[in-house]
């Protein structure tokens, strides 16, 4: 074999056997359900400041959790990031996370946005308000999620499928607030209000409403923010037709979920992982979430960005988010029974 093909073979073999080994001493290994483009810039900044290299695998939360579970005590992952509290709770219940006692974290992350046993901490807030088409809907007639079954909104609502975690969380939060029976009755009535069978993502609901298919869309705020700052004229135009209504302000508050993080039980780079966790809740990072992705900071002492401020302050549902995880299967079955596709 020629030396050239030998070295090619060798490098190929190395590619296959040792891709996860890093030569840098200071590392932290991260499984993230946040998409690469929504986390990588922060991680790069962390590496710059601390010299700690961050190795990243992204994927769906459930799959990453499955991977953690099957890898057990030998998992290379030090930290798991998800975009919903229910999944964090599930990770904790599966026994793959560990508690982190950190004064920094305890001080800046409000109680309802972290695990009572300190297994996970919220990093950013994602609110799911009611969006309506300006001029077609009188916002004074809107009040709560529950009131969306009012005959007023018959055939006027766009919302994505029940397979989506945001809807599952929303319904779970309603079960926590109103009880299972009342929520099931509501879900059955709510499905009848849909202007079309659920399809597409949150942006699609906004586009459909803007195009006149329906008047109300349920979507997370950062999708609206993303559309407003899009390079695509059509998206900007569509988003501009929409306004945000914060529901349940007289009661428990609008539904929010968190993206959050937990240390794995088997973390080998625990110190670095805690450093990263603390880094992710520092002021700069928190501001970045809002700036880059239109999410709300989890810290109360960091202002959301200009765009988010325009939509006004709102009262958040302070339900401890671990509940969302507990009630998730119930919520999904309820939606199945209600015929929510």
């Amino acid at each position, binding site marked *: 074999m020629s030396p050239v093909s030998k070295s090619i073979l060798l490098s190929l073999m190395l590619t296959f056997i040792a891709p996860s080994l890093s030569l840098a001493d200071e590392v932290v290994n991260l499984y993230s359900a946040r998409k690469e*483009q929504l986390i990588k810039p922060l991680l790069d900044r962390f590496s710059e400041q601390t010299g700690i290299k961050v190795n990243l695998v992204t994927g769906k939360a459930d799959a990453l959790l499955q991977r953690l579970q099957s890898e057990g005590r030998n998992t290379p992952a030090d930290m798991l990031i998800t975009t919903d509290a229910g999944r964090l709770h599930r990770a904790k219940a599966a026994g793959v996370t560990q508690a982190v006692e950190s004064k920094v974290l305890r001080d800046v992350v409000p109680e309802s946005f972290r695990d009572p046993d300190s297994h996970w901490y919220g990093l950013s807030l994602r609110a799911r308000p009611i969006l309506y088409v300006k001029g077609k809907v009188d916002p004074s007639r809107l009040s709560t999620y529950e009131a969306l079954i009012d005959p007023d909104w018959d055939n006027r609502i766009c919302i994505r499928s029940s397979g989506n975690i945001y809807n599952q969380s929303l319904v779970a939060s309603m079960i926590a607030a109103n009880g299972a029976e009342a929520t099931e009755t509501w879900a059955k009535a709510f499905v009848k209000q849909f202007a079309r069978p659920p399809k597409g993502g949150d942006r699609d609901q906004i586009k459909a409403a803007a195009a006149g*298919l329906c008047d109300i869309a349920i979507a997370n705020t950062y999708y609206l923010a993303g559309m407003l700052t899009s390079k695509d004229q059509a998206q900007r135009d569509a988003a501009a037709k929409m306004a945000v209504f914060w529901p349940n302000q007289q009661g428990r508050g609008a539904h929010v979920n968190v993206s959050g993080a937990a240390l794995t039980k088997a973390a080998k780079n625990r110190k670095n992982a805690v450093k990263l966790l603390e880094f992710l809740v520092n002021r700069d990072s928190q501001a970045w979430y809002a700036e880059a992705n239109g999410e709300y900071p989890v810290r109360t002492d960091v202002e959301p960005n200009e765009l988010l401020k325009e939509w006004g302050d709102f009262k958040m549902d302070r339900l401890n988010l671990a509940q969302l995880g507990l009630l998730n299967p119930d919520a999904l079955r309820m939606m199945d029974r209600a015929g929510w596709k």
Partner: protein
Amino acid sequence: MRPTASRFPWPHLSIRLNGWSVTVLSLALLLAVPVIVVLSYLFEPAGEVWRHLADTVLRDYVINSLLLMVGVAIGVLLLGVSTAWLTSMCQFPGRSVFEWALLLPMAIPAYIIAYTYTGLFDFAGPVQTMIREWTGWGYGDYWFPEIRSIEGAALMLALVLYPYVYLLSRAAFLGQSICVLDVSRTLGNGPWRTFFSVALPLARPAIVAGLSLALMETLADYGTVQYFGVSTFTTGIFRTWYGLNNAAAAAQLSAMLLLVVFALIILEKISRKQARYHHTSQRHQALTRFELNARQSVMAFLICSGALFFGFILPAGQLLWWALTTAEENLDSRFLNLITHTIVLAGTASLLALMLALLLGYGKRQQKSWSTLFAVRLAGMGYAIPGTVIAIGVMIPFAAFDNALDSWAREQFGWSTGLLLSGTLIALVFAYLVRFLAVSLQTVEAGLGKIRPTMDEVARSLGTGSGEIVRRVHIPMLKGSLLTALLLVFVDVLKELPATLILRPFNYNTLAVRAYELASDERLADASYAALTIVAVGILPVILLSRTITRSRHAKSA
């Protein structure tokens, strides 16, 4: 060809443990591990979840999956067979371009074509918006086909899957003895009658083989149906596994899916068997194509360009438009890395799949016992199983193996081996092999079928050993099939998403992962660069593939 084999009855129903059957059985079992792991969940009680599923959604899963299969079957047959016939048997302007170009839709992942069509034809998309602007109509004032529906999903899948049928039926048409077609023509049948009464029945096994590939892909599809909000078995499996947090019920749904796959495989086998009787004449002459008149030429042109336009030009054009106008993507060294990663993975997986397919195909040829036949079937099962399910089936046993080894090493030497295989590319490539082996296996088996047993025996009686037979007889005769197998798997891996997403190592992304991450964040336009690059990387093998088939015509068996 005479069924010589019938005169030498092989000992059925007896296990002969020689080198071949041991190799084949152990390889097949290894490849079946993920499926077995998933199936092992069958024995965990799923509790009342089944009752819930049966009461609520199961009916939808079954009906939608069936409807989808029927829709895709109709679509791929219409598109695939008609274009294959036109390009192989008729002469019309543009034919030589269509010959290879009709394979291009293969390079487009189904979920990507779904994104582009939604972008174009959805209620809020430019086409309908334009209609509303021109007419002043609003929602409900006019009818427009709903792209995100089960019909739409079937159309999307048919548009990118028809090349399987095209590929295989074209090879069959080209391989047909010209005599039978000549006979039909001397009996006064025109191209159309000849097609329906002679060519189509003769090509049926090949068409069914292509169809079964397309249907298995359909069953395994998750991206398209999920995006279109169509509840099928695949989406149901995920809802049950993750949403209801019930792995057992999800595995039981997967098992039901496997039953359908078994049925498809049997269907395919049955029609393959008949192929033996189909080659009546051993002689082939240069093919003379039907000359079409002006009107027929226009029709032929429209049919072929329609398939090409809707399956490739339109979606690729939309991607290009997005890439040029609205996408935000840095084409830096990181993006270059995505390309190298993707090519290295696809290249490695397709080579390994080819080697495995050869081993299994030979094993089956050498040792036609029921055990090897079963083993080879088993090894090809992964094709219809959704990538995520396979990924989980790979992850669990690999991690269990690593952890067991680690525990042992700690006990024996007080030293930890950590995870050796989990989280490496080995696990990922293994998953690809499980998922796509069926593709190379089918192609290689078809190729091996052309090498009659007597050809080996002549070689041996002329003093040629096994190794030399492979080198001097098999490889030259199989060349076309081997290349086809290689390229098909390459393109499949290029497009593969779910298994890659779950099993890849740290800091290792591929084009499909990038496209998905952006698209699932509802940034379709931003995903266009990665999507377009997948298509670009896929085009070359697709064109090579087409040339292989055209060439194989010239070296037809005597």
